[in-house]
């Protein structure tokens, strides 16, 4: 008993896996001692600001910088002409396209960067922006991707005659690519012969990640030693270093990229933006550090939109609801440049996870990418590359099929789920799902919300509504999503040619504490807390004795960064593997110290013990000391390890979400009465952090589903450039969430973990949207596009004739 208690105490002291360890980051952040990019302040630092296009499509006839240059305090005004000799007036995008850094002859979206003003402070820079005179000649504007594919108007004159793009043939001058997956003929045949087919256009509108901290950078070119230091809001600092080297010609060892604290990313800070490039060039030109920080309007108008997918779906089934096939064609509005942040070979990301949680024998997906006069981007806003779009699509199609079949949507899901014994499961669109137990999660969720009672209440409500006793409707929004996260595998995933592995390097100090550095970068996920926990369980030192460092390319090992929920699946795995290397060496040292053979030892929490003689042991602390102060034959001094982890597969987290919503048919207002979220992210590292991630992701999902959008008028004017127009829920609109979990470990991940930060957004959006649709199902609603703001909900009711 005593031994067991003692062992438990040793486990508890580690604060390892499964512990709701309080975050080590918080002491700084709660006292205002964070260090974000705008906090970087260097002697002699100048400030950059952009002249931006007021037009969505126009020729730039002339730019006159004289008045701006004459203003006291202005140091430089850069235009495309200045960047051209350096070949930096255009830059490559992550999607294999190129993008103007500064307007080269024309502008293609409102807010596009035209000139970069550099001045001694931000106020003078803003004044000078007003003084730059740009003469434009307006051109006709295309904001509709369907129209763009038919139109004679050429948006991208630079590639107008190119028949081949980065992803195959282009069939029109505004066409970017057609990307296909699955068996088209077989799918069409199944649809033709099916007993039931449901068909629907599902639009996932354009929105924006809008982290609270906008994007920015500080570049400092030290001309004496030839070194460039770049601080910035980078979710992938190492990739930024490589790109900066390739673009500038400065050797990579002379560039140091630092991602300091990042005030939220959500995909917004994956891309490379003209501001970063201009701050670097300006620092090289002026010889002084240059800071560029975008304001909120610039952030919403010009950097990194998300979604904008028109998804035309057909789903077929037998009369009793067994799904037989799925067909999807997407018209993807990429804006003026294809700057999607996807692994190179996946121009539509992992959209082909769109068979979701269901065993669908045959499927086809085709995605047409299209240029329009809108901002570039297409980032994964709190999701793994286009997985949110896929989950929304399939979860709407299931609901539409349920209507077609006149079936309960929960039951329809249940009879089509992939069964627990089918894993690893090969999907019709080419993925191998690693593990799952959907039926268990689903039953748990339905029981938790008392699903049958809710349906009975809803039926009563419909009757009361029809009888004029109430004006409120009840919606029950169901979702069972499957994510695909942790890119991953290097053999088919890369960013600009860099394989999507990740890394961890560990140094154990003589007195038994450690530092570990990773190729990822936290933007609020709490890596400094949770990665120390992974390591604590592996090497038997307390998480409190382990420092985690990320984001400085001079010290951290190369990694592909943090997005697409890849940190835990990839860098988390690297951490565990590096920890195991430490342990392997520690075992040799322990064997020497205890004068036994390596194989006579076994690991026990924080020590190696001689098998059968538990009183003979060496703790990791003892071993660490010995590694530095004893000559051990055949063993190098020191205790360090590095691991570069190439995951054999992605991980497939899943979850069951249910939203119960009250809707006022007359005002379109809604109230979320209950939201239940069950997540299965495999092994749970820190339940407190997981729950926090779920709350946050659900709130972003609420925003997207219920009001948030980037909208344009016919002239290409962005109508949602401030937080007045762009909806971010406050504490008042945000409901209380109930979280729950099941735990199905990933079979191929060293600790069985899957990644969770994005699940709530992937599953949350369909749950909220389905609740709205479900409230009106009894009155004949099939599909209505998001965001479901009060006006649009009112309009649904009005169109259905519910206003008398």
């Amino acid at each position, binding site marked *: 008993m005593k031994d067991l208690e003692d062992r438990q105490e040793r486990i508890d002291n580690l604060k390892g896996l499964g512990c709701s360890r*309080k975050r080590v980051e918080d002491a700084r952040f709660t*006292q*205002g*001692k964070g260090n974000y990019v705008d906090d970087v302040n260097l002697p002699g630092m100048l400030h950059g600001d952009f002249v931006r296009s007021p037009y969505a499509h126009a020729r730039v006839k002339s730019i006159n910088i004289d008045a701006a240059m004459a203003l006291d305090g202005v140091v430089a005004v850069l235009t495309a002409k200045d960047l051209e000799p350096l070949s930096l007036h255009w830059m490559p995008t992550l999607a294999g396209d190129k993008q103007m850094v500064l307007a080269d002859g024309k502008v293609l979206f409102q807010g596009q960067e035209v000139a970069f003003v550099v001045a001694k402070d931000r106020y003078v820079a803003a004044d000078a922006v007003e003084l730059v005179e740009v003469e434009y000649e307006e051109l006709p504007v295309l904001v509709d991707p369907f129209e763009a594919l038919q139109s004679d108007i050429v948006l991208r004159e630079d590639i107008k005659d190119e028949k081949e793009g980065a992803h195959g043939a282009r069939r029109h001058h505004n066409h970017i690519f057609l990307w296909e997956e699955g068996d088209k003929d077989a799918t069409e045949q199944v649809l033709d012969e099916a007993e039931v087919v449901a068909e629907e256009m599902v639009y996932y509108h354009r929105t924006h990640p809008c982290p*609270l901290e906008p994007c920015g950078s500080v570049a400092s070119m030290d001309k004496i030693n030839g070194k460039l230091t770049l601080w910035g809001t980078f979710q992938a600092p190492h990739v930024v270093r490589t790109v900066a080297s390739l673009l500038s010609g400065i050797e990579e060892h002379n560039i140091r990229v630092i991602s300091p604290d990042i005030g939220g990313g959500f995909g917004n800070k994956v891309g490379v933006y003209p501001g970063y490039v201009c701050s670097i060039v300006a620092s090289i030109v002026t010889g002084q550090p240059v800071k560029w920080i975008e304001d909120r309007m610039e952030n919403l108008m010009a950097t990194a939109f998300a979604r904008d997918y028109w998804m035309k779906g057909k789903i077929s089934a037998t009369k009793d609801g067994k799904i037989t096939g799925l067909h999807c064609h997407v018209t993807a509005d990429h804006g003026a440049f294809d700057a999607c942040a996807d692994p190179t070979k996946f121009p539509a990301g992992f959209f082909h996870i769109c068979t979701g949680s269901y065993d669908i024998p045959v499927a086809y997906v085709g995605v047409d990418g299209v240029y329009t006069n809108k901002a570039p981007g297409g980032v994964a806003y709190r999701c793994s590359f286009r997985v949110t779009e896929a989950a929304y699509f399939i979860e709407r199609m299931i609901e539409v099929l349920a209507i077609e079949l006149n079936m309960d949507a929960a039951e329809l899901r249940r009879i089509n789920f992939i069964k627990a014994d089918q894993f690893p499961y090969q999907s019709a669109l080419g993925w191998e799902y690693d593990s799952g137990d959907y039926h268990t999660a689903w039953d748990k969720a339905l029981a938790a919300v008392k699903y049958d009672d809710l349906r009975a209440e809803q039926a009563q409500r419909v009757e009361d509504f029809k009888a004029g006793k109430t004006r409120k409707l009840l919606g029950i929004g169901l979702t069972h999503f499957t994510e695909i996260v942790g890119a991953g595998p290097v053999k088919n995933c890369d960013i600009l040619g860099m394989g999507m592995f990740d890394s961890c390097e560990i140094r154990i100090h003589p007195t038994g504490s450690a530092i570990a550095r990773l190729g990822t970068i936290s933007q609020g996920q709490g890596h400094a807390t949770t990665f120390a926990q992974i390591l604590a369980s592996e090497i038997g030192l307390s998480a409190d004795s382990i420092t985690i460092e990320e984001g400085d390319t001079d010290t951290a090992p190369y990694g592909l960064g943090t997005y697409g929920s890849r940190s835990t699946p990839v860098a988390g795995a690297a951490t565990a593997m590096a920890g195991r290397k430490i342990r392997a060496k520690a075992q040799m040292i322990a064997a020497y110290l205890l004068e036994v053979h390596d194989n006579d030892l076994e690991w026990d929490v924080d020590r190696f013990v001689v098998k059968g003689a538990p009183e003979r042991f060496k703790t990791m602390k003892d071993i660490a000391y010995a590694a530095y102060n004893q000559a051990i034959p055949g063993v190098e001094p020191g205790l360090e390890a590095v691991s570069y982890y190439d995951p054999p597969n992605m991980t497939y987290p899943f979850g069951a979400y249910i939203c119960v919503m009250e809707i006022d048919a007359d005002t379109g207002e809604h109230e979320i009465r209950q939201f239940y979220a069950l997540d299965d992210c495999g092994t749970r590292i820190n339940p407190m952090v997981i729950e926090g991630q779920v709350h*946050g992701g659900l*709130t972003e999902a609420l925003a997207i589903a219920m009001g948030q959008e980037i909208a344009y008028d016919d002239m290409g004017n962005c109508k949602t450039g401030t937080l007045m127009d762009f909806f971010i829920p406050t504490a008042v609109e945000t409901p209380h969430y109930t979280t729950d979990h099941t735990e199905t470990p990933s079979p191929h991940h060293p600790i069985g973990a899957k990644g969770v930060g994005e699940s709530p957004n992937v599953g949350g959006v369909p749950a909220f949207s389905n609740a709205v649709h479900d409230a009106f199902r009894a009155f004949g609603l099939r599909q209505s596009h998001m965001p479901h703001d009060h006006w649009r909900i009112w309009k649904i009711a009005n169109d259905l004739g519910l206003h008398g």
Partner: protein
Amino acid sequence: MGKQIITLTVNGEKHEVAAEPRELLVHTLRETLNLRGPHVGCETSHCGACTVDIDGKSVKSCTMFAAQADGAEITTIEGIATPDGMHVLQEMFREHHGLQCGYCTPGMITRAYRLLQENPNPTEEEVRFGIAGNLCRCTGYQNIVKAILAAAAEMNAAREAAQ
């Protein structure tokens, strides 16, 4: 543009600073006085990341000229901790995981600090309404609300014990 000299008492310390008439208070605090706690998230009064406490009121320092604060007493997040350590609110934000990226946190805690003086015993609904001027993109507010309620309870208990 000409600068004028203004007097600000910030976190108990008196400063004379030169500021242009158009200079926003948040920039004076961040750049002249090197108090980097108040953050800029919008500059349009929506997000609350720049919230400071001025003469007993929560104010968004991006929407006030430094010159307007001439003579004022200002508390920023840097002035909220006590000599004995972190303020209860700071402790409770950590305890209840009321922050993730930390960008909204200084403004959020500074607002909560004033809220609990305006209403020492708020309901959950009152807390939610009371912090509605402060946006958070990361947490979904649930744990922030929990942290503020926990801080209120602890401060009230301490007050009672002192009486």
